[in-house]
């Protein structure tokens, strides 16, 4: 480990590559300009990896692209300087900046799927920048790209480039994008949340390959993320941003060991929420040997049995494609099972939605991952929360107004929100409105499908606390679908581990989270990043040793 430390310090002592002084950026919305980045200084040396963290709206992505001398559409610089290797990027002509981008500075975006052109082969897109800038001949570029694919540990590096973007997995695509950014051997790469959209198990691989290749070519990097555990693995130095201002800046190890500012401490504390588990034999939901499939295709659920005790939380964990969301669709009746039964409160539920009566629909409510699409953008909060009240409980007029106001209080919002459209409130508030809509029905069971994964960590914690409090107050049971183990620790009483449509394990939280594990549970648990800067290094060594 000592050696590793030494290497990091040595790298952080290169000459200054990027210097931003008092950068101010403003953005336009509704014809009003408001400040997004409020005067930030940033220095990056050659070969150094700088982590930018903060909640959404902190201005971290805006600052990230500003390092290329670029302001997003609808934004503009209104102060400060950006100097890259002696060149003042804000004063440089478009032509000069264009020459730098791609060849000396490159950018890796969050959603690789959206960043690739689906109509071209991967290899053509990888070498495009290089041939555009005329650095090397096509043949050399292709050979180099294949070499990079190999270094990034992509399977079949010589042939994978002939595929189209939809023919490789999300994690592979993200690595191809990193290769694309690397082709010109840039001095600086900006990674904007490159692993946020990936599963934990895939994330580990991508993180490992990004880290090794950046080290290998001594590339400086700015790593933007809201996940502290991830940034702890990648960055030498961390800058914490909030509301467009710098909160704290320190070397990774120092900041992890002793954060100074209150805000930073609160970020660190988020992952420590943990629910005391409890149990009961009184089952509210029994899913009994259920098979389910879409059309006549392969089974998505294969002999799945899950039980939810009354007033408790059962967390369903697994990577994408494991069948967690399909389980929710079976319970809600959207997808009738092809075999097996679902019992609710001891009596069997009709398999298909249209056969269920209003009363059983009322008792099972659902909260979705993306509050953006779960709320009708044309309905006001008043109507969104009011509808289930009118629909199930027949409330109207003044009674309805009062009840809506009560519900808003429960989700810690005030009456002024009644009049708003979903587009006019923040992501966390939208999720609260979704919770209020579910609560309005007075349900026995709420199915939460990845309800916190689209939110940043502080908001996540607030939502989890709210859900816990509501459970205590109203005795609601949760079927909580998630891929995030920290969330599971925070909220679950029991855990169900799913993989490829099968239940690997169901049991008490502490039992599932302590050894001995089934193989898949171990892989899943060990892939969850921890707040330890050596976690990734240790994990890779351990896995390597095991492989041998």
């Amino acid at each position, binding site marked *: 480990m000592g050696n590793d430390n030494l290497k990091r310090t040595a790298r952080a002592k290169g000459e200054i590559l990027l210097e931003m002084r008092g950068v101010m950026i403003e953005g336009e919305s509704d014809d009003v300009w408001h400040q997004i980045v409020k005067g930030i200084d940033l220095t990056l040396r050659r070969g150094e990896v700088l982590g930018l963290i903060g909640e959404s709206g902190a201005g971290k992505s805006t600052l990230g692209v500003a390092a290329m001398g670029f302001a997003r559409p609808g934004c503009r610089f209104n102060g400060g300087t950006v100097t890259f290797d002696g060149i003042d990027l804000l004063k440089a002509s478009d032509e000069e900046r264009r020459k730098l981008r791609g060849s000396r500075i490159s950018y890796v975006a969050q959603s690789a799927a959206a960043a690739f052109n689906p109509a071209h082969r991967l290899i053509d897109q990888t070498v495009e920048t290089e041939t555009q800038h005329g650095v090397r001949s096509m043949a050399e570029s292709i050979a180099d790209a294949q070499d990079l694919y190999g270094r990034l540990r992509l399977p079949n590096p010589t042939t994978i480039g002939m595929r189209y973007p939809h023919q490789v997995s999300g994690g592979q695509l993200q690595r191809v994008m990193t290769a694309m950014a690397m082709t010109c051997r840039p001095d600086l790469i900006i990674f904007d949340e490159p692993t946020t959209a990936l599963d934990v198990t895939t994330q580990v691989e991508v993180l490992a390959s990004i880290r090794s290749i950046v080290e290998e070519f001594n590339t400086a990097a700015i790593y933007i993320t809201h996940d502290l555990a991830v940034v702890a693995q990648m960055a030498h130095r961390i800058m914490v941003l909030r509301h467009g201002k710098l909160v704290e800046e320190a070397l990774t190890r120092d900041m992890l060991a002793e954060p100074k500012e209150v805000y930073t401490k609160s970020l660190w504390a988020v992952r420590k929420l943990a629910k005391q588990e409890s149990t009961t034999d009184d089952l509210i939901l029994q899913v009994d040997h259920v098979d389910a499939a879409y059309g006549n295709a392969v089974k998505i659920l294969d002999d799945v049995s899950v039980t939810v005790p009354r007033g408790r939380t059962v967390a369903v964990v697994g990577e994408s494609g494991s069948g967690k969301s399909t389980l929710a669709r079976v319970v*809600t009746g*959207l997808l009738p099972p092809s075999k097996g039964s679902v019992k609710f409160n001891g009596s069997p539920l009709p398999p298909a939605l249209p056969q269920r009566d209003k009363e059983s629909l009322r008792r099972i*409510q659902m909260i979705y991952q993306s509050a953006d699409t779960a709320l*009708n953008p044309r309905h006001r909060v008043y109507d969104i929360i009011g*509808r289930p009240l009118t629909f199930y409980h027949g409330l109207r007029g*003044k009674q309805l107004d009062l009840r809506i106001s009560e519900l808003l209080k429960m989700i810690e919002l005030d009456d002024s929100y009644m009049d708003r459209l979903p587009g006019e409130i923040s992501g966390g508030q939208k999720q609260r409105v979704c919770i209020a809509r579910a609560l309005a*029905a007075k349900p026995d069971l709420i199915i939460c499908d990845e309800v916190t994964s689209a939110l940043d960590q502080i908001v996540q914690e607030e939502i989890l606390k709210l859900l816990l409090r509501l459970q205590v107050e109203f005795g609601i049971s949760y079927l909580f679908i998630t891929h995030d183990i920290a969330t599971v620790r925070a909220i679950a009483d029991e855990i169900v581990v799913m993989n490829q449509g099968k239940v690997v394990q169901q049991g008490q939280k502490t039992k599932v989270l302590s050894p001995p594990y089934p193989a898949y549970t171990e892989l899943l648990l060990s892939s969850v990043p921890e707040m330890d800067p050596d976690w990734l290094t240790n994990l890779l060594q351990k896995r390597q040793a095991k492989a041998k």
Partner: protein
Amino acid sequence: MAEAVMDKKVPKARRSKVATALRELKKAPLTAWFGMIVLAIYVLFAVFAPLIAPFKEAEVMGDAFMPWEAPYYLGTDQLGRDMLTRMIFAARNSMGIAFAATALAFVSGGLLGVLCALLKGWFDQIVSRLVDAIMAIPSLIFALMVLSIFKQPTATNIILVIGIVDATRVFRLTRAVAMNVVALDFVEAAKLRGEKIGWVVFREIVPNIMPPLVTEFGLRYCFVFLTISALSFLGLGLQPPTADWGLMVRENSTLITYGDITPLLPAGAIALLTVAINFIVDWFLNKTSGLRDGQ
């Protein structure tokens, strides 16, 4: 607790839609203003035709083809009826029928489109294939064919035929945009709540597909208008003595040979209306599609 309940104001401070509309109007470009003013004048003429027009719609006033002199400011037509009067009445007939036909097309095509997107399966298959079959026949020929079956093409027949032909286009558009909305979680949430299909269609889906539909309504109205004029010109539209711009072009077309521009007046009226509506639609499209923001 009771006191708190008593104290509670019932909060209702919805921003007025009128205020928002006025704010948007202030930002409207010149072209849109031009369109709106022209359209307003047309509508005024259409609504108050009997009050504005100097004579009766089908009254023979003088000799045929009289020149542009008072009291016949635009001369007379081939039967000696006042051109100006007929121009004004035609606004009412042509625009009214076009509006009715377009509205019919939107109600039927739009509703079926949303239902197909929502229900999918065999319902969607049957309706879509039926629509494909109608769309396979060129619309003007289809309209001519159906209209020639009726001995006397009445206004109702014209509205029905054109409404059905155009409903197929509206159906396609509505189905496509509704598909995107149907896939969203809030529609699923409404279904899970146990909402009836009427609520899902009119409260959840329709408000979210209105912008492209309103735009299409404007454009479709122009097309319908042109189709009606074309039918009239071909003699299968409105029948004399009803005044109609398309019909008027035909009736007076001989004048062109003598270098008289009178028959071009109704044609010009059609053209101006089309341009005006397109200006308005353009503005609306720009505003709602967010093209302006470059996103």
